[in-house]
């Protein structure tokens, strides 16, 4: 038996012997997974699962062993992932530490920063949030104004960040600050790491049209951040932000792969349109459902085409630029149609007369209005396609 298959057998045995039984049950949503950090409330099984996987470094299986990672090869990491999937074993840890800042630090940071931060990410001790957008800097992120002024060995940081997901639950923030207000805007930005318990940091959650959300405003009032926490060069932060964006884009592509089985549009039509057990009785609704289904099918085939091409060793093609735009627009059309199908039963905000599924449907539709805005607006996506793929002039 070759070593990889041996590894597979040992892994499976170890998982079955050591994972707490309740970790074999699936979670309802990603919010029910373990995000780590000091502010989390831990169910004992969740904590134990996090601890034993963290100790092995299997929360970050392919990260280097010297920083606490699993040290597995890509092939081995894939085997681990496959065996966990086969057993329906949930991931022990999720979060921006694993998906965004960790990979960036491993790629770009000093040895000192790697030794300080990576092990704590792997063990789930530190939860991270991202401080990029500001009230005055959304699509034009490079225009950000949060100021960092050098005072001895520290930067004094003053400004405001907005749309920081989970800032109220995070222990550390990676943020972009302006260190040279006289340079061209991209050339005066520094990428820095900040402890959220530092004096001067305050956080306020943002209420959305759909109700509560993980988004927060973060106020920075003369916060002292050691200059050793700079990632890359001072004034070289824009390049760091771009490198991290690459990791974010991979994450987003994965999001589109996950979808609950079954067709929610058909389920709703059968519930709310009488006589629709087989053929949907309302011809217009039926046609609208088909259009959304077809749009999704074409998007899925394009995702597959992109993946097949990369597997065959080709560079990512121009089709990769369409995913965020088309995926969000299709999802929004689907959510819109779901409310149409449910009719006035989808208009409840809370309380009697509306069941939980109906209330969730409404909130989900409202929340989905943000899909075409967050993570790069649809208009920016179209600009990027026009410039980088089609070569249209500025």
């Amino acid at each position, binding site marked *: 038996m070759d070593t990889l298959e041996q590894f597979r057998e040992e892994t499976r045995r170890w998982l079955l012997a050591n994972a707490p039984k309740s970790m074999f049950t699936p979670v309802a949503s990603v919010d029910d997974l373990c995000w780590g950090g000091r502010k989390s409330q831990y169910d004992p099984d969740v904590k134990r699962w996090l601890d034993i996987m963290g100790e092995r470094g299997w929360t970050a299986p392919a990260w280097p062993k010297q920083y606490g990672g699993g040290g597995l090869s890509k092939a081995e990491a894939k085997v681990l992932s496959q065996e966990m999937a086969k057993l329906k074993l949930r991931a022990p840890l999720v979060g921006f530490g694993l998906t965004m800042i960790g990979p960036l630090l491993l790629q770009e940071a000093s040895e000192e920063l790697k030794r300080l931060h990576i092990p704590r990410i792997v063990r789930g001790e530190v939860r991270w949030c991202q401080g990029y957008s500001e009230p005055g800097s959304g699509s034009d992120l490079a225009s950000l104004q949060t100021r960092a002024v050098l005072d001895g060995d520290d930067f004094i940081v003053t400004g405001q960040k907005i749309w920081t997901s989970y800032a109220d639950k995070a222990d550390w923030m990676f943020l972009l600050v302006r260190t040279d207000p006289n340079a061209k805007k991209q050339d005066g930005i520094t990428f820095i790491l900040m402890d959220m318990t530092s004096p001067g940091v305050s956080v306020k959650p943002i209420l959305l049209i759909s109700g509560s959300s993980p988004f927060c405003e973060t106020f920075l009032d003369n916060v002292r951040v050691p200059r050793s926490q700079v990632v890359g060069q001072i004034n070289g932060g824009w390049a760091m932000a771009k490198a991290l964006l690459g990791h974010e884009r991979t994450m987003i592509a994965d999001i589109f792969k996950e979808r609950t089985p079954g067709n929610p549009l058909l389920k709703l039509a059968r519930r709310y349109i009488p006589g629709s057990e087989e053929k949907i009785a309302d011809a217009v609704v039926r046609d609208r459902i*088909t*259009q959304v289904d077809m749009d999704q099918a074409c998007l899925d085939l394009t995702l597959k085409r992109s993946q097949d091409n990369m597997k065959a060793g080709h560079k990512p093609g121009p089709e990769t630029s369409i995913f965020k735009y088309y995926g969000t627009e299709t999802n929004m059309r689907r959510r819109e149609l779901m409310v149409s199908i449910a009719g006035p039963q989808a208009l409840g905000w809370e309380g009697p007369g509306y069941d939980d599924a109906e209330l969730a449907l409404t909130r989900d539709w409202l929340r989905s209005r943000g899909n075409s805005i967050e993570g790069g607006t649809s208009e920016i996506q*179209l600009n990027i396609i026009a410039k980088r793929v089609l070569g249209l002039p500025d």
Partner: protein
Amino acid sequence: MDLVLTEEQALLQDTAREFVSGHSSVRRIRALRDSRDELGFSRDLWREMAKLGWLGIIFPEEYGGAGLGYAELMVVLEELGRGLVPEPVLSNVLLAGTAIAMGGSDSQRQALLPPMIGGDLLLALAYQEPASRYQPHHVETRATRGASGWVLNGEKVHVLDGYGADRILVTARTAGAVGDAEGIAIFVVNADAPGLSIEREWRIDSRNAATVRLRDVAVGPDALLGGEGQGGALLASVIDRATVGLCAEMLGSMSATLQLTLDYLKTRLQFGVAIGSFQALKHRAAKMFIETELARSVVMAAHKAVDEQTPQVGALASLAKARCSDAFVLIANEGVQMHGGIGMTDEHDIGFFLKRARVAELTFGDAAYHRNRFAALHGY
């Protein structure tokens, strides 16, 4: 099923693109149109395509074919579409040729496929009728038993490449009511058969189409393609395959339309700048591009499904046709609009693409027809 071109397919694509750009152009289409050329294409060019092996790509080697698949045919069709090439590949290869290959007896296949593949015999499939809209099983043309064989009576419209064809494959009803899938048969009729009239239609895309009228057309027993009642299922399969192939051609045509438009956006100056710098046009061009990428994926998947003979062929054919119909029409309309005034002139090429877009859209079922079919195939 990987949605990737193999090296051989990529090579075939390059060869096809070179051939088309060297032998055809919109100017040639314009000349065929303006001279009111009755055939609507060049027999010489047709023979050249035959020599390249293009007409036999999907047919077995025993008939002179290459024994390859729809994945290979797709790249050729796309290049033909890119050049608006009117030579009758769809009608000969995907309609009539495929009907013969799938439903014909050994002797019928031996008699008809090699000469078609060699470029020496022109075929057409006549199935649409004035009242049938997109339903292939709506057949009013009747086949009644004659002294030996049958007698055919009826009318077929929009017969692709019907004019000048040597043999017309005709769908006719031997039994059942109009609309029944059962009781349909396909007959191979000689173009010079007494009682058969073939009248050239002059459509907006200038391509060869014909109205075929059958008045007591007598055919022998060996004119029946395959079994007597089996024509309905065969016809549906053939049209699905032709639909998939048409989508490949549409993909090429819509890509050419987009390219023409992008070139214009980059070169046309107004207000001192290239109009492609205006954000409104950038966004609309980006949306056109998105449509071509989505279309490409489903067209590839549909061709591969035919090759792999999966049960999804029908659903993918409908998905592809609905997508390509909407995409090509959108791109063509946007193309004309973005060209401004000259887009409306006959002198400019873009109008040829608009006209072809509408014809292709309304062939083998429009988007609404295929959405309905897709839903039905998925049980709703």
